């Protein structure tokens, strides 16, 4: 293994285990140590320093790392739960308190772990592109649902309305969950502002579930359901967008 590969692997492991700030210090130290090693000692790199992951493990404060792992799994569970309810056999016509619970728990954890550190660095370009792509996807989903709710697609068979809504919402939720998990990992290992993707993904997953729940429990005689439910979705969406903005700052 050459020095660059070693440093890359060490850097990734250190950032995951130690978090961004402390990892930056130890990676800088390792970069200096590796730079000073004579090139003829490259063959004994692993023998002298140990595997990069093991080297990062030696620097880990177990208590702090366990705390991070717990938070990561809870945040991931908060993302997966709405997705499982939406795509699994657990969908009911009534919103459950747990859906609000996972939303607020996930957003709170993301804000606690990845709140602003006052850094003035540029936002990662890839993050902005992914956020833009997700926004386009959400607008498309909203447009499809609006057409379904208003009956604007006259040629679309009415018996397909439910299936179309389910397909569109499931797709949006699955993409959002994948983006959310990816964002959490990048927030830990790269730049904390990637957590914006987590909050946006969680918001999308929960609102998708809420919309599908409303459609399943829809009563044909209730003509004001959209206004009533719409307020609820707007509040959740507003909180999610504010959280996304806070993490991005």
């Amino acid at each position, binding site marked *: 293994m050459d020095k660059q590969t070693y440093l890359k692997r060490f850097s990734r492991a250190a950032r995951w285990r130690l978090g961004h700030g402390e990892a930056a210090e*130890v990676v*800088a*130290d*390792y970069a*200096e*140590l590796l730079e*000073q*090693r004579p090139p003829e000692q490259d063959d004994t790199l692993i*023998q*002298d*320093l*140990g595997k990069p992951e*093991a*080297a990062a493990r*030696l*620097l880990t404060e177990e208590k702090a790392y366990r705390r991070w792992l717990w938070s990561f799994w809870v945040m991931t569970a908060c993302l997966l739960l709405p997705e499982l309810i939406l795509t699994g056999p657990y969908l009911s016509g009534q919103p459950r308190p747990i859906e609000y619970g996972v939303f607020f728990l996930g957003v709170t954890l993301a804000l606690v772990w990845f709140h602003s550190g006052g850094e003035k660095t540029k936002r990662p370009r890839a993050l902005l592109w992914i956020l833009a792509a997700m926004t386009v996807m959400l607008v498309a989903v909203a447009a499809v649902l609006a057409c379904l709710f208003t009956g604007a697609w006259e040629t679309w068979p009415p018996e397909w309305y439910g299936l179309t809504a389910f397909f569109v919402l499931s797709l949006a939720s699955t993409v959002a969950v994948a983006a959310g998990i990816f964002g959490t990992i990048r927030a830990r290992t790269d730049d904390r502002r990637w957590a914006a993707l987590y909050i946006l993904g969680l918001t999308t997953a929960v609102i998708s579930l809420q919309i599908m729940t409303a459609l399943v429990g829809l009563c044909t005689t209730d003509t004001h359901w959209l206004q009533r439910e719409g307020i609820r979705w707007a509040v959740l969406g507003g909180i999610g967008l504010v959280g996304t903005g806070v993490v991005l700052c």
Partner: protein
Amino acid sequence: MLKKDLIELCLLQLLTVEDQYGYVILSQIHQSFPGTQESAVYALLRGLCKAGCTEQYEGRESEGPARKYYRITAAGRARHGQLLEEWRRLRDGLTALGIE
């Protein structure tokens, strides 16, 4: 006294003589403890730094590149004295048992 304490003693001992930069410290300790990987020594050095026994500063030798040097602090000297005392007790104990 554990091996970890012995290595800590050696790290502090090196720094009581003069300030050193990371690579030199790790190489010297690795020579004395060939069975211990440099990453483990670095972890101990960082632990001493976090405990306030040593501190880092950026320095350079004439014409050389800037490097992170380590120096011992007052807390480090106290820890050094404590570890040295433990080592002497251990050595005397071993000598009393006929181990030399």
